[in-house]
Structures are given as structure tokens and as C-alpha cells.
């Protein structure tokens, strides 16, 4: 079984983003970038499937700037077999990403596609589901457990109110949630080995996909700041304060 994993290069999750003064976006110059945390979980799950003998090959894809190559090398160092980089120096919206991935899925014929449930930069949470529509594959979103058995996969999903399990016929798409697994760190020897693994470079035009944006960002602003609060010295003061502002009766 071949597994396709999509990864995105995003601002490191520990960095507090700063909005540019001119309101055009978030300042990403000289900011630490990393693999989207949900995508690390997707890569880890693919590699675990391979280690268990369920997957024969893990192909990892990223769509983004030339520097996204580093993100792909990270995935290769974790254990992916080969990588495809689709370069674009401008932002590619989820719909266009899904269209490119659909073309790659058509070429590669994976049995399972793993993507993170959302990217922590645009917080859209769309790509996996859109890819489902374009390929006709069923989708197991927000997965906390993935069980491949024969020609189907059971996916336990984190939904409002609990955990739901669905059965999907392969080929299928799974979007990963935080509790699916704990991603491994790439060891130094594996990082060295990853440098010689194959990485193909493509462009959106190679797949015939128009990446012109459909959404126009008019403005990016800082959220309104909360006014400074007070610290109280005791439980009595806390209760009195809560009563005075009407927070409790």
C-alpha cells in the first residue's frame, strides 16, 4: 500500500506572530519556520504504518516556496521514502492545494492520503475535505486512531461531544488530530541519509492547476487588546471583585 502525506511549512508554533504595521499580513521575515505540527503527526502515522508492514512506500508532498524543501527533508529524515515539491512563491489557497494534490493522487494512486487537520497559520481546515471531493475518496477527519484492515480503514474521529468511529473504503483520506500519535525526532544519521533520498521539483503548471487566489485579503489587523486586569491578594478579595463586576451573584 502506498501512502501519500501532505506537509506544510509554517511559522513555528512557539513563535508569537506579529502583524505588519501596514496591515498587509503577518511578518514572516527572519521568523523561525517548521513543519505544521498536525503534518508531523501525519508523517509519523504513515511511517508507523510502514513499520508495521501495512505501507510499502511513503511519498511526502509540499506545496510552497523553495524553502519548503527543508520541510520535506525533515519528513524524509523521519522515514518517508521520497518527496515531491511543488514550488510557488505566492500563497496557495486550500482549494488550489487540494487540486494539485488530487492530480498527484491520480498519478501516484495511493491507498491512503494523510494530511493534518489544519495548518496553524491560516487555520482553514479545508484541504483534506476538499481533496475528498475532488478525488471522490471518503474522508476521516480529525482522526485520533487509524486502523487499516483489508480494503477499508476504521477512523476514530474527535468530534464535539466525544469520539466517533467511521469505516471508510480505501482509497481514503485521513486528517490527523493531535492525539493520533507522538511524532519522533529525526536522528542525525537519518538526517544525513535524507539528503540523498529523491526529491522531485514541480510547478503548479506541471499539473495544469490555476493557483490564482479566490479570496482577496483586504487587511490583517491585530486583535483588540484586553485592558489590563488587577491582581487580588486573597480569596475574599477575589469573591468581592467578582461580585462587584457582576460576574457572580
Amino acid at each position, binding site marked *: 500500500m502506498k501512502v501519500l502525506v501532505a506537509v506544510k511549512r509554517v511559522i513555528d508554533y512557539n513563535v508569537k506572530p506579529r502583524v505588519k504595521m501596514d496591515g498587509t499580513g503577518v511578518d514572516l521575515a527572519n521568523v523561525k519556520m517548521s513543519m505544521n505540527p498536525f503534518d508531523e503527526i501525519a508523517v509519523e502515522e504513515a511511517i508507523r504504518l510502514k513499520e508495521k508492514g501495512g505501507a510499502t512506500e511513503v511519498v511526502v508532498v509540499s506545496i510552497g516556496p523553495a524553502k519548503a524543501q527543508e520541510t520535506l527533508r525533515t519528513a524524509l529524515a523521519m522515514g518517508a521514502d521520497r518527496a515531491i515539491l511543488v514550488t510557488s512563491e505566492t500563497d496557495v489557497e486550500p482549494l488550489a492545494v487540494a487540486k494539485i494534490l488530487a492530480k498527484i493522487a491520480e498519478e501516484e494512486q495511493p491507498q491512503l492520503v494523510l494530511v493534518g487537520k489544519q495548518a496553524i497559520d491560516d487555520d482553514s481546515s479545508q484541504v483534506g475535505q476538499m481533496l475528498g471531493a475532488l478525488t471522490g475518496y471518503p474522508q476521516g477527519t480529525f482522526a485520533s486512531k487509524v486502523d487499516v484492515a483489508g480494503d477499508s480503514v476504521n477512523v476514530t474521529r474527535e468530534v464535539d461531544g466525544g469520539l466517533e*468511529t*467511521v469505516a471508510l473504503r480505501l482509497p481514503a483520506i485521513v486528517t490527523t488530530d493531535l492525539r493520533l500519535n507522538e511524532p519522533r525526532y529525526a536522528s542525525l544519521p537519518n538526517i544525513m541519509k535524507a539528503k540523498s533520498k529523491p526529491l522531485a521539483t514541480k510547478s503548479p503548471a506541471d499539473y495544469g492547476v490555476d493557483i490564482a487566489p479566490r479570496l482577496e485579503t483586504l*487587511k490583517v489587523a491585530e486583535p483588540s487588546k484586553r485592558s489590563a486586569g488587577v491582581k487580588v491578594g486573597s480569596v475574599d478579595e477575589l469573591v468581592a471583585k467578582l461580585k462587584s463586576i457582576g460576574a457572580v451573584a
Partner: protein
Amino acid sequence: MTILVLGEQHGGKVKDSTLATLGAAAQIGGDVHLLLIGSEASGAADDAKSIAGVSRVLVAADAALDHELAEAAAPLIARLGADYDHLLFSSTTTGRNIAPRVAALLDLAQVSDIIAVEGPDTFQRPIYAGNAIATVRSTDAKKVITVRGTAFTKAERGAGSAEVQSVDAGVNNDKSSFVSMDASESERPELTSAKIIVSGGRALGSGDAFHQYIEPLADKLGAAVGASRAAVDAGYVPNDYQVGQTGKIVAPELYVAIGISGAIQHLAGMKDSKVIVAINKDEEAPIFQVADVGLVGDLFKILPELTEKL
């Protein structure tokens, strides 16, 4: 302009999250239709038709639409969508699962998790875990949108008198099936609609401490119980208690954060609360930068005393 809203129901009632999405639909303006799907859809139609602002309730009462499987629901909504200018979904796990599948079937971009309507094609949405607010304009002919429930006033029940119309589901789904649901049982208010939330973090140290310290305070206040990711990952409480970028987004009247440091991801889920109270032994904890009222000290001493004095 006509707007189609996917309604979510439970036990014959339309969910609060749907009422908030109808609130967003009212701000966009136009004729609003509410779609109910699944074999229990007819049961909720009576409730749905009385909601203010809804002019028509569409009922697709087909068992193939039970459990809101995206493979079944999306083609139906995409087909109905031909007659609408806006397709609205709640930013619940159901809405977020189905909406993008509908958008791609119609070759439309989606605007996720809007918090404000500036015009029929212009919306505000948070990005980077709520650290920036983007104003975006959709250039597509139709708009597919998910709505953050806490940002909109809920449509009221009782004032409306919509006509009910049944629609043919025409569903043919052999790709996915429902296996089971493991629901977290709780007598307390539902997290995303609670007026007061008491949330615990890693500092609690165990699930027992949640029972012993957090729950009595929550019950005294009539509050829902929430948690940070650290508390969920440590197994103290189930994961649907999680408040944050990757969990639930809440905006109650009062949010009490106990033993929670205040990481970016957690703040993303609760910083629009009206009043935030933080109890933490580390006075440098980032949570104090957003808290209206802070108390530095040992939660195991403070909580019993607070519960008693309220």
C-alpha cells in the same frame, strides 16, 4: 439573495450552534432557508420552523444522511446549493467536516470560521491562532462559509413561521459508514454555550483532582468544565473538554483558568471571554496578561476556600 444554512439537531431541537449561524445569516441579509438532514430531521422541523428569520425549512429525512457523513451530505448540499448565493455551516466538527467538501464540489473557495460580516462578500476571520484578524473578500460567485458560533447573536425561537418542505436526498454512499459513537456523558452545561466555564490545566496533577477541586466549583457556579491541552494529553479529562486553537472556541461571561499557564494555543480558544479569572502559583504565567482578575497562590488551598465562599 438567498442563504442556505445547514442545521444541526439533537433530540428534536435545533442546536445552539445553528442558532448562532442563523444570526450570521441575518447579518448577511436575504431569504434564509434551513436544511435539516437525517432520519431525525422531521422531528426537529417543528422547532426549526419557529426560529426567527428562517423562511423555509428543508427536510431531507433519509437514513443515509444519519450521523452527517460528509460523503452523503456534501453531494446533496452541493446540488441544492445551485439555487443559493451563500451556503453557511457552523464551525462545529460537523460543519467543518462537510463544508469544504461542498465547496470543492462546487469549485468554490471557502471562508472558514468567520467572526464578523462586513458585507455580503466580505468577512473577518482569525488567523495564526487568533493573533491576527484578516478581513477577506470572496471573489467567487457563491460563498461557502463556516461561522464561529461565539461571535454571533443567536436567532430566537418562537418568532418565526417558516414553511416546511421535504426534499429528496438522492443519496448513494457506499464509501463510508458509521461504526460507533463514544459520547462523553456530562450533566453540566455544554462547553461552547455555557455562560460560565471553569477550566483546569496540568497543575491539577491528576483526574482525581479535577473531580475533587474543579467540579465542585463548577457545580457551585452552574458552570461547564474545560481543560487545557496539557490536562487532556495527561489523561485527566476526555479530549472534548479541550479549549484552544485545536479544541473548542469559547466566549463565556466568566472564564476561570486554574493552573493553566496561558500558551498561545489555549488563549486562542478563550480570550474573547467577557471576564477572565486566573488562579496560578506562577505570577509570571502569561495567563495573567489577559486575566481581568488574577490570584497568585496554591490552587489546592484556594479552590476549596473559593468554592465555600461563593
